[in-house]
Every structure is written in C-alpha cells, then in structure tokens.
C-alpha cells in the first residue's frame, strides 16, 4: 500500500504555516504602519559648512551664548546652577549636562538645536513662537560675528571635550539622551539619577519624594508622564524604538516627545541598555537554545533508530 504520510505531513505543515502567516506577519502589517529607518541621517537638517574652532567655541559656550547658565559641564568643573528638581520646576525638564553632548548627539542636530530648538526637536506644534509659546531653551541669536561660524565653533568645542565613541557606554548614552524623562525602574534609574541603597527608610522616602516632585513638573511640561521603559524592548521591539527615537512624529504624529537627535551609534547603545533592562538573559537564551536544539536533534535520531528496530519485526 502506498505510504500517505509524506502527503499528510505536507498538508498539515502547509495549513499551519498559512495560519501563522495570516495571524502574525500579515495581520501585524495591517495593524501597524511600517516606518522605515533613515539611518539617523537627519536629511532635513543642513550640514555644517564651516570648520569650527574649539577654543572660540569654549569662549562662546561659557560666555556670550549663555549655555552654562542652565547646563552643567561637569567634566570642565562647571556645575549646574540648580539641582534637578528645581531645574525641572523652572524649565519642565532638567537641562542635560553637556560633557558628552558632542558624542551622544549628531553634529548637524546640535547646530540646528542651538539656532532653533523647537525646529531641531520637531516640537513646533507645541512651541510656536508666533503664538507666544516659547521653548524653554533660548535660541542662540549670534554673538556679533558670523553666526554659522560661531555655531560650528561651539559644536567643535562640545566634541572636543566629549569622550570617544568607544568610551561611551550604553548607560551613559541612555542617561544623557533619554533618562531625564524616562525612568527604568528595573535598572533602579529614576529621572533624577540612579536610586541609591539607603540605610534608613526615611532617606529612601525623601528620595522618592524628590522623584515625585520632578515627575510632577515633567508631567505638566509633557502633558503626561513619559512611560517607564523597563520592558520596552519586549513590548515595542528594537525596530520601533529605533525609528521612534529617530523621529517620534513618524510613528506617533503630534506626540510631545521631541526628536532627540542622537547619532546612530548612540541609538544602538540606548537599545543595548534597554535590552539589558528588559531582555537581560538574551545571550543565555541564544546559547542554551543552540545546545537544546542540538540535543533535540540527537534525541530525534535515537527515537527514529529505536522505532526502526521495533518495527522491523512488524512488517
């Protein structure tokens, strides 16, 4: 009698795969719009045409441009004017420390940000100068010389003090680019820094209250409290996070989240940080998975050989 098993197997596998394709890849392609990554090229921003001078940049950043009035540069021993909670009370969010801004953010983006923050951040729908809605970061109107040269100088200065790309860790990238709005409770990260181990409950509660005060200002500024990102690597996935960071408006038109302007390298590091938080055991999973697969194949081979032996007598 003809062996029908191969045909049956083909039918079962074909219907299974068809169902899988319909409910997974196809259904999801219909539910979520696909946004293609642009490799963090920021094509809408014009490149810096002038060659910057770090020395002049330092003078501007610490002087005429007034950056250090709000931003700290800890590396150059320039502390912040106020602590994070007070700063958030005044600006809505704590302005970032500029020590590594030159490596975390894209140069074109920094240049545009200095000149026109709401434009670079893509939050002009929220901050329309014509309607008197001013972005808390004051645009740089020039210090009397060629404004493009001055901006190029400032960017060059920021790049000159920053650590190298290789030295930038995932944690540094996340804390600088995302961490002032988004907590990651699984890594004990709050918007005002990593929560330390306290010996006394009173100190721990005092820290929590500071976080709550900061979050209150942030909520008022953003419209709602930006979410905790602990599990975002599993709930949103790498592709969504990457394209969202690149340009939030592409994924969610009208969102209050600004374009952050990170480089492709920084974005990769941010994703690595989130993967460490929400998919901590992924490397173990891959290596254990490989071994289990090898075992399963050996198991199947032995089962097959046993069956052949037992059935030899049956035919």
């Amino acid at each position, binding site marked *: 009698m003809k062996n029908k098993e191969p045909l049956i197997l083909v039918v079962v596998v074909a219907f299974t795969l068809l169902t899988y394709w319909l409910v997974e890849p196809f259904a999801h392609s219909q539910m979520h719009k696909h946004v293609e990554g642009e490799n963090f090229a920021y094509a809408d921003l014009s490149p810096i045409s002038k060659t910057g001078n770090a020395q002049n940049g330092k003078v501007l950043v610490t002087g005429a441009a007034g950056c250090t009035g709000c931003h700290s540069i800890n590396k150059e021993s320039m502390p912040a004017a106020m602590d994070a909670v007070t700063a958030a009370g005044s600006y809505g969010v704590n302005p970032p420390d500029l020590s590594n801004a030159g490596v975390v953010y894209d140069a074109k983006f920094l240049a545009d940000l200095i000149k026109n923050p709401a434009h670079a951040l893509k939050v002009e729908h929220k901050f329309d100068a014509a309607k008197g809605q001013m972005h808390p970061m004051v645009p740089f109107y020039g210090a009397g010389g060629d404004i493009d040269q001055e901006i190029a100088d400032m960017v060059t200065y920021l790049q000159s003090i920053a650590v190298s790309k290789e030295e930038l860790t995932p944690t540094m990238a996340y804390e600088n680019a995302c961490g002032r709005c988004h907590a990651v409770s699984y890594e004990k990260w709050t918007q005002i820094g990593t929560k330390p181990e306290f010996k006394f409950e009173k100190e721990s509660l005092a820290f929590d209250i500071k976080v709550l005060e900061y979050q209150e200002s942030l909520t008022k500024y953003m419209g709602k409290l930006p979410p905790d990102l602990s599990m975002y690597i599993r709930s949103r996935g790498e592709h969504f996070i990457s394209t969202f960071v690149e340009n939030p408006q592409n994924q969610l038109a009208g969102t209050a989240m600004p374009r952050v302007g990170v480089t492709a390298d920084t974005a990769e590091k941010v994703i690595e940080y989130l993967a460490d938080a929400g998919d901590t055991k992924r490397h173990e999973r891959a290596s254990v998975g490989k071994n289990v697969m090898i075992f399963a194949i050996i198991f199947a081979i032995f089962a097959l050989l046993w069956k052949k032996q037992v059935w030899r*007598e049956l035919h």
Partner: protein
Amino acid sequence: MAHFTKATSVKDWLNQRLAVEKVEKVMASEYWIPKNINFLWAMGMVLAITFALLLVSGIFLLMYYQPDVKDAFYSVNYTIMRDVDFGWLWRHVHGVAASVVFLVIYIHMFTGIYYGSYKKGREMIWISGMLLFVTFSAEAFSGYMLPWGQMSYWAGMVITNIFSLGGLHMDGLVEWIRGDYVPAQAFLTRFFMLHVLLLPLAIMGLIGLHFAALRIPHVNNQDGEEIDFHAESKKYLAGDKAGSKVMRFANDFMSKDMMVVGIYLIFFFYLVFFQYGFALDPVNFDPADGLKTPAHIYPEWYFLWSYEILRPFSVNIGLIAFGFAQVIFMLLPWLDLSPNAVPASRRGAFNIWFWILLVDMIVLTAMGKLPPEGIFSTIGLVAALLFIILWVALPFITKNEKKA
C-alpha cells in the same frame, strides 16, 4: 483477606498487592493498536508530552509568581525573567507550550473529523476530547490573566463582559464573576486559583476519561477497516507479528509515538528559543492600565475563529452565534447521520464539507485578528455565516450518504 505468599522478587511482591503485570498488559503490552495508522495518531502522545511540559514549567513559575495586582507584573517580568536562574526558560516554555498545545489539539480534532473517529461506539472519546478542549481553553484564558499586562487586563474585561449576555444585562453576574466592578485584586486571585488548581484537576480527570473511553472501542484506523481485535491479537501472540493487523501499544506503537515526539520537540524548542513572539504578545509586556485600552485588542490565535463569529453581528445575535460555535462541535456525532466511519476522502459531499470547514475556520482566525474595518469586516461576516450554514447543513449532507 486475600492470600499472600512470601515474595520471590520485587516484581512478585508488587504483583501480589497491585497486580502490576495485569495492569501492564491492559495499559501497554496487550493494548492493541491497528497497524494501518499514520503519524496523525501520535498527536495524543504529543499532547501528553506538551501537557507534561506545561505542568513542569508551571510548577517552577508558581514558586516565584505573586498573585497580587501590585506585584504580579513585576514578579513575572523582573523576578522570573531577570532574577531567577532559568526563570526565563520556564516562562518561555510555558507560554510557547500553551500556544502550541492548541495547534496540536486542532490537528488532533480535525484528524478525528476526517477519519470519522467519533462514530460507532467512539462518541465518548469525542465528547471527552471536546470537554478537554473547553477546559484547556479556560485554562489558557485564566493563565493569560496572570502576568497582569495590558492584554491580560483587557482580555479579562472583554471576555467577562460576555457574561452580561447582551440584551439580558446581567451586570450583576459579571460583577459576581469578577468580584469587583472591574477586573481587580479579587479577579486576579480567583483566576489564579482556577489556573493552578481547579482547572488542572479537571483536565487531569478528563485526560483519564479520554484514555478510558478509548480502551473498549479501540483507536480508529486510516482505512475505516473493521478489525477483529480478538483474532488479530491472538495471531500476534502466536508469533505471527508481521501477519497480524494489530500491534502492541508498547513498545510497538510507542516507538513511533516517540519518533514523532522527537521531531515535534525540534520544532517546539526552536519556537521556545528563537520564535516566541507569537505566543508572548508584545502588548502584554506593558503593565495593566484600566484607563487605557490598547489600540488593538485581540485574543490569542486559538480563540480567534470563535471571537470572529461574535464580532460582525449586533450584540445579541453575535452572542447567540458565539454560543452556537462553542457547543456545536460537541454535537458532531449526532449531526453526522451517516453510519460510515471511513476517511472523508471516501465520503463524497462530506469530504467537501470537511475542507470548506477547515478553510473557513482559518479565514475566521485571520479575520479575528485583523482590524474590523472595510473588506476584512465583510469577509469576516461571510465566513461567520458560512460556519453556521455548514453546521446546519451537515445532517442533510450526511443523511443520504451512500454506504462506503
């Protein structure tokens, strides 16, 4: 009192007290299986193995899981996934097995329908099997609540609302089931109890019944052949193993069962480690929020076909259609009026009925997940109507079937 003699061996000692030899004969070596069956007959063993995987992984998850609305999400996603050594493995095995078990159940079910294995004294096998399907569905649903993510919460909300029974407005019943106005602590703890105690007990009892129901009528075969098990087993025991039409369950058929299990496990572990997204929905990695509905709410894939039968109609008709879909499979042995217990391929119109039903259920499954808009909504409505028509037509199709 029975007469006991001094035992000559451990086996003899046990034999006097538990009749282990007799049990072994009844359950394995003289449990006769027809030879003309294919790998689809191994799905029972595949299911048993998958259930064992669920049980073992569940036991380890239970040791760290916290059934508390404040801690549940954290205990799953932080404690089990990050802290507990190999906790992630148990969760992935449990989640993937819970999804794959339904794939195998559906294959098992459609095998039964195709070969007519619910007829001629096999009705109890079919009914106990369908009861297992229902309890497995309840088990899957209650387990889906436990991580207390967005999909847990909103699936819990939507499914328990079905019990308001549309136009009857039984809101009191819904609140009674939840123990609150909305899914909250009481809801989570009672579904936890159902998931880890009551339903597993029911499932294990039903598995026993399902196996027992199989013992007297024997399993069916792929040719619809009437086998004289008594005569054929005598032939086998007399030494004509090759000439007999039957074989022992163990080791003869079990060796084939294990071969199929071996191949299945390759597929299963591939899903566990490398392709788990379909079973562990990304949306459920967002913590439950009663004031924010996710953009798309859909059940797990194995509930989609019945969910889609609920969806395209107005609320009361939808509920009636949904109720119809839940019980109709149970009645199959009485809706199929033909006495032929042979493969569908030899049953004319029934064969066409079978393949249309299968394709229709796949279409319903797909439409149940897609957003209910435009063309998808129309296809869904047509497929839901077709499902109902198919079942209503079944007695008429089979009544005048020729003797095969």
